[in-house]
Every structure is written in structure tokens, then in C-alpha cells.
């Protein structure tokens, strides 16, 4: 993970921020927080609100965990993290209830369940507890944005195919034939798997290209010394 190793230079704040967007995307690379990912992504709006709520909890918890990391005894750290996370989840829960009751009812128990989202606890344990507050918060915000983006990507496809709309705007007119399966749980798995497949294909292609470049450079360097590499 990203704890500062004596051999490597600590990552810059920008690197901390972008880590969650692509390299360690919480949903499509680390495959964390699957419960809300599959359950609330029926529409783009639900996905976006879930992502924003999680981002807030993540950023606030990681900041506090990081600030208190030298005070928290190792033996009770998980319990302490959970208390911190639960505090912010409660704040989010009441805030969403106050802003939009419809949304609150659509998201249901999954708001409270952010406390059990392994992405939040995982970031607190693996990153925030070992890094200063600025790095921890930037990393958490990046992770949260990556999570939000992934959820909207899944929710968007499911809403377009399942309801013919995107963020509530009808795309195909009144005669659209909804794909019933897309708003049912299997649709979540299909779309999620499709994106995972696309991500892994793109990543594998990028890796192969990097390896080829490496080999070409090595060949170019040795070609001066010996013939026909």
C-alpha cells in the first residue's frame, strides 16, 4: 500500500488524489464496497447521492483518523475507527433525511450501512492511519470520487437500459421498451461485470504496451554493444 517506504519517495499530494480515480479505483480495481454498488445503482441519481455520501464519510473519517493516529492505541484501533466512521454516517443520515425524504427512502438502509463499507474502514486502516492529515484527506477524496464515478457509471447504464432515462431525463420517448432485468439485482451484476471486464482489458493492454516499450528501450541500449538482440 502507500505507507512511506525508505526506498521510495513519498507520493505527491496529486498522486495521492488520483490514486483512487484509476490506479486503485475502489470498485473496478480493488472491488471494495460491493454491497451499495450492487444495491443502490438502479438509477444515476441514487448512485450519485450514494457516492457523495460515501465520499463525505470517507474524507471526514480519514482526516480524523489521520489526525488522531498517534493517540489511538493499536489494540483498540478498529473500534475507534468504527466510532469515528459511525459518527459521520449518522451526520450524513440525518442530513440526507433533511434534504430529501424521497432520496432517503430510495437509498434505504444503505446510508446507515456505509459504516460497514469495507472501503471506508480499509482506507482508514491502510492509508489514513499511516499518513499525515493532508495526504490522507486527499487520498480519501480521490477514492470517494473514484467510488462515485464508478457508481454513476453502473447506475447510468442501468437507468438508460432499465428506464430509458439518464438522471431522470427521458432519452427514448414514451415508447421505450424497458429491460426489466436491468433494474433487478442480476442487472447490477451484469453491468458491474461488463465494466470490470472493460477495465481489465484496458489495463492489460496498457501493461503490455509498457512492457513492449521497456523491451524496445533495452534492445536499443544493448544494440550498440552487441549485434542482433
Amino acid at each position, binding site marked *: 500500500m502507500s505507507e512511506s517506504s525508505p526506498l521510495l519517495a513519498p507520493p505527491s499530494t496529486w498522486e495521492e488524489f488520483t490514486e483512487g480515480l484509476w490506479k486503485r479505483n475502489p470498485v473496478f480495481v480493488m472491488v471494495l464496497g460491493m454491497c451499495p454498488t450492487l444495491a443502490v445503482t438502479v438509477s444515476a441519481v441514487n448512485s450519485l447521492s450514494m457516492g457523495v455520501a460515501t465520499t463525505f464519510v470517507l474524507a471526514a473519517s480519514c482526516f480524523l483518523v489521520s489526525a488522531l493516529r498517534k493517540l489511538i492505541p493499536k489494540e483498540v484501533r478498529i473500534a475507534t475507527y468504527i466510532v469515528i466512521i459511525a459518527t459521520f454516517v449518522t451526520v450524513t443520515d440525518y442530513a440526507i433525511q433533511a434534504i430529501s425524504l424521497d432520496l432517503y427512502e430510495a437509498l434505504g438502509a444503505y446510508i446507515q450501512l456505509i459504516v460497514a463499507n469495507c472501503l471506508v474502514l480499509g482506507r482508514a486502516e491502510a492509508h489514513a492511519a499511516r499518513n499525515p492529515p493532508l495526504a490522507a484527506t486527499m487520498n480519501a477524496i480521490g477514492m470517494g470520487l473514484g467510488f462515485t464515478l464508478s457508481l454513476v457509471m453502473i447506475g447510468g447504464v442501468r437507468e438508460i437500459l432499465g428506464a*430509458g432515462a439518464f438522471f431522470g431525463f427521458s432519452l*427514448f420517448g414514451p*415508447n*421505450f*421498451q424497458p*429491460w*426489466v*432485468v*436491468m433494474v*433487478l439485482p*442480476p442487472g447490477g451484476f*451484469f453491468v458491474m461485470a461488463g465494466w470490470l*471486464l472493460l477495465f481489465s*482489458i484496458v489495463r492489460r493492454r496498457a501493461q503490455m504496451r509498457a512492457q513492449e516499450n521497456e523491451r524496445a528501450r533495452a534492445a536499443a541500449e544493448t544494440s550498440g554493444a552487441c549485434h542482433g538482440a
Partner: protein
Amino acid sequence: MTVEIRSAPHIKDDAGVVKIMRNVVWSLLPICGFYVWQYGVSALASLVVVTCACLAAEEFFLRLGRQSGDLGDWSATITGLLLALTLPPGFPLWMGAMAGFVAIGLGKAIFGGIGHNLFNPALVGRGFAQAAFPTAIATYTPSFLPDRFTDFIPSSLALPFMTPADTASWVAGLNIDGVSGATPLARWKFEGVIASNWDLLTSLSGHLPVGPSPLLILACGLYLAYRGYLDWRIPVAVLGSAALLAAALYPLNPQHFPDPGFVLFSGGLMLGAVYMATDMVTSPVTPLGMWLYGALIGALTVIIRYSGGLPEGVMYAILIGNAATPMIERITQPKAFGTEPTKETRA
């Protein structure tokens, strides 16, 4: 006279994937022809579009990655033809193309191509279509309509992503006596009307909204079994267990449970038993395993039909049978002679 001495295995035939698949396609042609005769241009368009979608998907995934197989091995053609035969004739063509793409992509390519799939690709495609478009896939139209060779069934030509036209009012507008869009299975399930076995067996009388004649499917299956391209044990086990279970339940309540003949000849049981359950990739290879697998599918079909919410259960029965295949093969492994201690040697 020369005596040629060779060591085992003694291969007498050059049957390979391509030859077997080609023969299956040939044996499907009469069935497809009958289907076109029943439903006209809509059925023809459905067969062509679904098969082309399967072939296009196969080509796409072959180019995309390291799949086994190639377009010339006929397997995608079989998937397409079988998928089209399991869909209603008036199934919107865009949905059929979607089902064909899903059949190859989700049913086959994702597992690594031909020979690697866990489930019958055609049924994966149909399962997806059933889950995505439950209304369209249950909408049948009467067969042998007078204008079938010139007029499309209106729902066939729905624009992509749009709701198909209502066929019920179209059928009512044709003013043909004794015509309804409900399949014999749906009429039994929801209205308690049982069609006669002979009508179901031939699919010829009246305007029954059914698939190709079970008799014809059986004949084509016999040809394949005779050539050794499908194992006779699986269809016999599927049909046998379905008939036995139906015969056992029939005396209990003849009003509610149909007779075994109805169970065998209605819906897609014959097509499923002969062409889908026998898919070499997704069925067991051991003889005992084939019997168990077939019996499981037959029994599940009857159970799903009798107590499920939907009138038809063959698709799910075969998919569950496919899922059970690895376990069936594990428990039916033959023991090599001599590896087990006998009573004498143990003593």
C-alpha cells in the same frame, strides 16, 4: 490379403467438431423449414437475424481475445438457429439480435470460447431475453395465418429499444375463428384447457401457437443419434423421467395435472431434450451421468411447469442440469479395472 496391425485407439471415423456441428445444422434445417412454413416471413426474419447476430458476436469476440474456435465450426450457427426456434415467431427482431449477442458473449465467449462454456449458449441468450423482456417473450401468435408469407407479425418490426406493437388486437382484427395467442401450455396453466396430444405432436391442426412439430424434431434427433452425433441416453432420460413423473401425478388429480402425452409434446420439451440437453460441452460424458442428468432435467421440467409461476420450465431445467453437470461427472467417474482392492485381495 494384408493384415494391418495398429495400436489403440482405433478411430474409424473422421468425426470432429466441424463435421458433427455441420450435421447438427443439416438436421436442424427441416425443423427451421417447418417453422417458416408455420409462421412465414416473420419466422424467416427471426431465424436469419438471430443467427447473424450470433455469428457477428462470435466474430467480434474471436477478434477481441484469445478464444478457441473459429467462425467456420458451425457452433455459432447452431446457437443462433436454436435460439431463434425457442423465441416466439413475432419476437421483435432487435430483441432477438440482442439475445443472440448475449448468447455468444455471456454464454460462450466469456468462458473462453467453444468447449469451455458451462451453460448452453442458446439458453443463456433466451434466459437473458426472458429476464429482460418478459412480456414480449410470452407473446405468441397463431400459426398458419393466411397472409403469413406476405405480412410480418407487427411486433417483429419494432424499432430498436421501442415497445413492440400489440399483437392481440392485430390477431383479433384478422377475424379468424378459434384463434388465440395463448400457447397450449399457457391455456393449460391459466385456463385449464388441455390440447389434444395428436394436435400437439404434429403442430398442424388449426392455428396452434406452438413451435415446430415435436414429431419432426424427434425424427431429426433420430438421424443424429443414428449417426452417433448425439447420445440417445440423454433425450431418452429427459423424456422418460418427465413422462414417468407426469404419469405418477396424473391419477392424483386428472383435472389439474395433464396427461403424460401433453407434458411431452407441449412447449419446448422435445426441442430441449433432443437439441439442447445433448449439447456435448455442457452435458456429462459418463453413461450413468447422462442418465442422471437427463432424469434431473425431466423431473425439474415437470416440477417447474406444475408449481412454478411460469407455464414453461424446460429452459431453467436444462440450465440447472448444466450447472449440475460437473458434480454429476465427479460422482459417476468409472473406476479403472484393478485399482480397487477386491474381496479376495483384501483378505
